[in-house]
């Protein structure tokens, strides 16, 4: 069987090399699709058309299937994230401790719904399905950093700090 030659990288952006590395490590096997998409998202912050096409072609997976996988899993995002991200945990323990009020307050403060980014691209507001820090509920992640026993005032303060940066 002739050796498989993967398609060329979309550009000379170094991040593509990281993505390609993941695929090479897995021998460009189809089952590396989710692994590779994880690498794309951690390198680029989100998945766009170009990257999904590139990964699908490289792994010889139908584009429809790749797109199907991307949209199936909540962890993958098709939209670029804002400069800062506020992730509010909406797991059961956090819900019992009132994260629904935190979400409502953040939505009102930023004038956006959860899952959206402010118009200036500064702050994204997302919710998570339990980050496993239930002992510290309610929990929010500010730019990935876990903060426990969050109060509404503390959260609004953080949002205001980001807004004036």
């Amino acid at each position, binding site marked *: 069987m002739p050796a498989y030659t993967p398609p060329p990288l979309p550009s000379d952006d170094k991040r593509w090399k990281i993505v390609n590395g993941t695929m090479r490590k897995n021998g460009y096997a189809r089952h590396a*699709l989710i692994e590779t998409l994880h690498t794309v998202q951690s390198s680029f912050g989100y998945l766009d058309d170009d990257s999904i096409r590139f990964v699908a072609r490289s792994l010889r997976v139908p584009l429809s299937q790749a797109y199907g996988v991307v949209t199936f899993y909540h*962890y*993958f995002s098709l939209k670029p994230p804002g400069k800062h991200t506020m992730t509010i945990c909406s797991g*059961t*323990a956090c819900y*019992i401790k009132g994260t629904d009020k935190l979400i409502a307050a953040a939505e009102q403060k930023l004038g956006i719904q959860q899952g959206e980014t402010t118009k200036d691209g500064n702050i994204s507001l997302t919710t998570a*399905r339990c980050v496993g820090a*239930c002992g*510290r509920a309610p929990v929010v992640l500010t730019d990935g950093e876990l903060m426990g026993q969050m109060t509404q005032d503390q959260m609004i303060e953080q949002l205001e700090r980001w807004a004036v940066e």
Partner: protein
Amino acid sequence: MTLEELDQIAKATQSEYDKYDHEINVCMGTGCLSQHSDKLKAALEEQVKAQGKNVFVRRTGCMGLCAAGPLALVDPQETLYQHLHAENAENVVKHLDSEPVKELQCDLREHFDQQVHVVLENSGHIDPEKIDDYIARDGYQALLTALSDMTPQGIIRQVTESGLRGRGGGGYPTGLKWGTVAKSAGALKYVICNGDEGDPGAFMDRSVLESDPQRVIEGMAIAAYAVGASKGYVYVRAEYPLAVSRLQTALRDARRRGLLGNNIGNTPFCFDVEIRLGAGAFVCGEETALIASIEGRRGMPKPRPPYPAMSGLWGKPTLINNVETFANIAPILRKGGKWFANMGSEHSKGTKVFALTGKITNTGLVEVPMGIRLREIIENIGGGVPDGHKFKAVQTGGPSGGCLPESLLDIAVSYDGLVKVGAMMGSGGMIVMDDTSCMVNVAKFFLEFCRTESCGKCIPCRAGTAQMHAILNKICTGTGTLADLELLEELCDTVKSTSLCGLGQTSPNPVLSTLRYFRHEYIEHIEHKRCPAGVCSMVAAEQEVTA
């Protein structure tokens, strides 16, 4: 690596630590790290140096009592400090040789005394990123002994004898599962560790992977030898970055020590493990969906049979067990199946780790023998409901489980006992609710979860959860009728009996259990347009468009 070499490493590690007068174990699990226990550790080290003391400061995994974090345990005195921050470091180090600092001391005898640690025996005592720490506490002894002195059948016999049942929630007898995979024909078999802990409110698996990853790897390797597999996968949630990175370190170290790879323990046995990251789909906790996800596809369940034990990953016989199940294996082999079977109740043996959260004083992880009463867990170990509120319900088993009222707190915790009252063991989340929670709203919360997490493959689950959610929404906004309640019960029945996988079959449980024990709250919402707990707005919102 042989048993003698293992013993040498254990002794060398121990004597290295014996040189110190004291050890300070600093919890660096996700909970305490979020309160900057890394800075605490650095400050302690600095103080030890500055005060010229002969003390070892160790990074450890979770100590369980997340509510009191950051935690630090001073050995050999076994003084536990709570809410310890970097600024307290000087004081703590100063008092190492005298009386401990009273005001920082955590004195919760009741919390710890009733616990029995098997899975968590090393958590909080070893550095999760040092394999030698694990070896010094009898790590990998079970694997190497099994490889040199036991037959695969002998191992399966021990596991069967132990009475261990799947800790992911299903409660399928582990020995039986292993036996089936071992008997399946095929040269290529797989072992998968299910670390897709999707139940919101449960964090046992995260904690075990963060605190003692080698234990899980050892369990998987023993399983692989017993069933004849040579390749393993750990499927972990991407939402657990610390668990993933500690697992990566653990795998690398195990390979370096020759405890993974080719010819382990100088025997023909070869086994290696790879990590697969989940991508945020609750349904992937279901074994056939998890397999689809490892294969790089959408995580959709398949009808069983064929069971994964016959035809699993890439059509090969596959053994899937939960993190906690694998974590139980090494102690069972070390101490014997009988020892394990002596703990627990008649049909539920051993111990179980629970994540105690919600409106309870001592939130965190606890490990208790099966058969313990719920009341003991909540009132003694958990310290009861704080702030003078009244206990209302405890929710076990995540979105597939149920809410149990005060009157049922005296039942013994077991797989079958919980199912009988309409809840389930699940993976071990235990969420306590007080009088500020509305049970109708809680049911709605879980249905909302199941509705979004439904993979959409089978209609009863996809459409049923949406319709049930819509009805609950009506009730919560004061527009529900008694006829709706009837329809809701009928829907529950249909979805329960006709869905393809566990997600759909159990999704009505939160509704059914709240209807069973808190029906008056539903009636109050419907007939008097009033939410007794004052949670629901009771204002009719726009009717949601449903699937």
